[in-house]
């Protein structure tokens, strides 16, 4: 299928690249289908692009890159609802906000998005723990990841 996007232009995708978020995301309840995109230009961020609205794409990050000691203790029901049978099938993402001042970039560690890589389902899980911030600063971690050569383009160290 051909997908038109505002940020990434036209993409050729297969139906099996799409994740069905049947409840939508809070604030975006009407949109139920997303693809996970990566572009070297914004590494180490990824993008959850809506397949239904070309203008809707959320930058996301591996929460363990944002905060190495992150330990979300996801409820068992989150895995069972999405049909995740094995931990290897789980993809965890934190929603990123990039304001005008890029140094104030944050990630939502309180409400990670859990995807089932095998079943192509997903949802945003709001954690019970008060330990995690909705606006955890990540500029340092992103800059370090770039400087450390943690780059899909290969090693430059």
């Amino acid at each position, binding site marked *: 299928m051909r997908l038109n996007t505002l940020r990434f232009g036209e993409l050729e995708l297969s139906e099996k690249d799409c994740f069905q978020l049947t409840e939508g995301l809070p*604030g975006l309840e009407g949109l139920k289908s997303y693809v996970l995109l990566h572009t070297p*230009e*914004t*590494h180490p961020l990824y993008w959850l692009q809506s397949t239904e609205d070309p203008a809707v794409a*959320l930058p996301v990050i591996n929460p363990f890159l944002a905060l190495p000691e992150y330990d979300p203790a996801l409820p068992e029901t989150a895995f069972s609802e999405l049909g995740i049978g094995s931990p290897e099938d789980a993809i965890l993402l934190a*929603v990123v906000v*990039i304001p005008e001042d890029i140094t104030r970039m944050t990630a939502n560690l309180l*409400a990670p998005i859990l995807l089932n890589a095998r079943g192509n389902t997903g949802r945003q899980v709001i954690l019970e723990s008060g330990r995690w911030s909705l606006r955890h600063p990540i*500029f340092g971690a992103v*800059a370090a990841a770039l400087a450390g050569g943690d780059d899909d383009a290969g090693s430059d160290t």
Partner: protein
Amino acid sequence: MTMLVLTRKVNQSILVGDDIRITVLEIDGDKVSIGIDAARSVRIMRSELVEETRSVNLESVSSSANLKNFKKAIKDKKG
């Protein structure tokens, strides 16, 4: 939507449907401790966290990342 208002004392409960029991456990000034007995599949969330997550998601969608300049902007700011 109309809200049903009930008055409860400490240790009194409210049943919601057949499977959910909400009990007032403790009152301390303007803080109320509430116990909820429900099946694990029932999702219980603090409403303000859902509201804040909604705000963050919408801010995320309007992120001002310039794709071409993202890495350079980070390296420049890092100095």
